[in-house]
């Protein structure tokens, strides 16, 4: 099909709600008006790792304006969840409200529902939780050492276990050790990224409204409406037909609104009080409590020939999932599949491991899994170029995959465009390349 036959591709498409965005009339969840609305505020763990010995809510319950206080004992259905459980990912490892232990600083322990946000905040401060502080671990490689503090019986060694008892998402292709022995150069380094907050303009939140017909309507800004509906139904032990989730208008997400933190507890609060309840993260909660992008540590070892060909690449990656799984097993698998980058390398070995630490659970953010991998690989490519004294553009062009090449995870390359992309970038950047490189093509490895 030629471009001229396409009706949508290549054409600008107007956002459906752009007309009301510019007049301020778009209704975000918080703009929904309901009478007699209550406000929910969360009492959160002050420790990164501690055993809960007792939760005393009596003073909070008698605090002015408080309607009710919810702890794990009030949960009618599941006490543990994972957003992707419905898609077969698991196990469900994250408490809706902490019960036996807290595993990160900021974890939800008890919810106060009061007439005003200020009254709810005042009562949150009156909740007394007795803790026995436990040793915590914050580093991925420390966490998987023998004798490291264990977060949960789900993960005896503090790392995720993939199907068939694999500790890592893995690629084995060719023989890296043999190729390392034959290589002219070995280039080796480690790369570390930090957690990054998505920082949407609108913080996470929802309003749950009990309806006359026994249903509850939930106005939410979640990016994961169906997951949230599913999880909420499980936690409330309610059929999904009793829950009406209204969403789609999200004041910025970037992955930061797939946590499914506000909806289940707010829906339960509405059910218990019979009144509309709003739960809105403060900006501080958005920064400190909502999930971030994971921190990743990536070790790369490459075997390189004098002519620039990379003949072997070995990658070992530790993803810091934080205290719970959330989407990490998916992200780590994606990271693994991204290796060894857009290059054809005949010998590849990859181990990417999801590690649990006492840090804020991490989750989605734009290209999660891939971004940290690309960062590590492309800095490594520059390092190789420097080591062997080759132009970094030429090094990439030599190794870029071509149409029909076999990728390390045994899928043939289709619609390759890497060479053309590099050449176009070189032209835009004013980079002069020798003619044989300018004549390279994705369709023909021998060209150029």
């Amino acid at each position, binding site marked *: 099909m030629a471009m001229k036959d396409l009706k949508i591709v290549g054409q600008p498409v107007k956002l459906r709600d752009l007309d009301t965005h*510019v007049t*301020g009339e778009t209704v*975000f969840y918080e703009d929904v008006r309901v009478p007699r609305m209550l406000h929910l505020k969360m009492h959160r763990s002050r420790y990164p790792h501690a055993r809960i010995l007792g939760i005393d809510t009596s003073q909070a319950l008698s605090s002015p304006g408080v309607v009710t206080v919810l702890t794990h004992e009030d949960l009618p259905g599941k006490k543990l969840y994972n957003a992707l459980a419905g898609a077969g990912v698991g196990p469900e490892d994250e408490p809706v409200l902490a019960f036996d232990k807290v595993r990160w600083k900021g974890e939800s322990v008890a919810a106060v529902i009061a007439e005003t946000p200020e009254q709810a905040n005042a009562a949150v401060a009156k909740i007394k939780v007795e803790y026995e502080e436990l040793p915590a671990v914050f580093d991925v490689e420390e966490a998987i050492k023998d004798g490291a503090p264990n977060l949960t019986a789900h993960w005896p060694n503090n790392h995720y276990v993939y199907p068939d008892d694999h500790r890592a998402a893995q690629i084995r292709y060719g023989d890296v050790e043999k190729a390392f022995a034959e290589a002219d150069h070995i280039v080796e380094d480690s790369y570390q990224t930090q957690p990054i907050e998505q920082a*949407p*303009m609108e913080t996470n939140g929802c309003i749950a409204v009990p309806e006359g017909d026994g249903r509850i309507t939930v106005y939410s800004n979640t990016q994961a409406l169906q997951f949230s509906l599913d999880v909420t139904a499980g936690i409330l032990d309610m059929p999904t037909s009793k829950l009406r989730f209204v969403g789609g208008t999200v*004041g*910025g997400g970037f992955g930061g609104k797939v946590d499914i933190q506000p909806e289940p507890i707010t829906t339960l609060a509405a059910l218990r009080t019979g009144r509309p309840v709003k739960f809105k993260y403060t*900006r501080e909660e958005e920064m400190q409590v909502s999930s971030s992008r994971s921190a990743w540590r990536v070790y790369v070892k490459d075997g390189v020939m004098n002519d620039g060909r990379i003949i072997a690449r070995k990658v070992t990656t530790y993803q810091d999932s934080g205290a719970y799984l959330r989407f990490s097993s998916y992200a780590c698998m994606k990271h693994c599949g991204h290796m060894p980058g857009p290059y054809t390398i005949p010998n590849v070995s990859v181990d990417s491991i999801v590690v649990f630490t006492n840090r804020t659970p991490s989750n989605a953010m734009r290209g999660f899994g891939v971004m940290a991998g690309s960062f590590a690989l492309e800095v490594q490519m520059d390092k190789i170029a420097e080591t062997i004294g080759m132009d970094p553009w030429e090094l990439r062009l030599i190794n870029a995959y071509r149409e029909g090449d076999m990728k390390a995870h045994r899928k043939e390359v289709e619609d390759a465009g890497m060479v053309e992309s590099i050449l176009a970038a070189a032209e835009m950047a004013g980079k002069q390349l020798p003619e044989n490189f300018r004549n390279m093509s994705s369709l023909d490895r021998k060209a150029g």
Partner: protein
Amino acid sequence: MASGIVSIKVNGRAEEVVTGAVTTLQDVLRNNLDYTSVKDGCSQGGCGACSVIVDGELRLSCLTPVQEVDGSEVVTLEGLNLSNSITALQQKFIEKYAAQCGFCTPGMMVAITALLDRNANPSRDEIAEALAGNICRCTGYLPIIEAVESIVAEMAGIAGD
């Protein structure tokens, strides 16, 4: 606590608020008066989504005690919506794709109005500086700046005719 009556004019309409405790102008506009274009992105003056015009001056409503604007005229985007100039600006925003999630957009509109009231022919740099207190996480700002540039050019063209 002693209560007092605060009288303000919002978008041309006289309003009275009875309050004794510290109450932000943002809270009054959003929650008492239902002007929901006034967004609450941070409650700490960091994002600009709650920008309004008080007596002709751009202000952050989240850091303004309503008691401090007693007797003032307050304008939100709802109040600007009927003017020809904002309608033309809104059209440019649509043409240039200058809004994505839409959450910062009302604050942007108000801040741009305040800019153009002070300076009808701002340079690109002056536009960027005038919007420096309004954070957008989606667009990367360029389409917004281009929308303002194009409305400025259009207005100059009309003035030159």
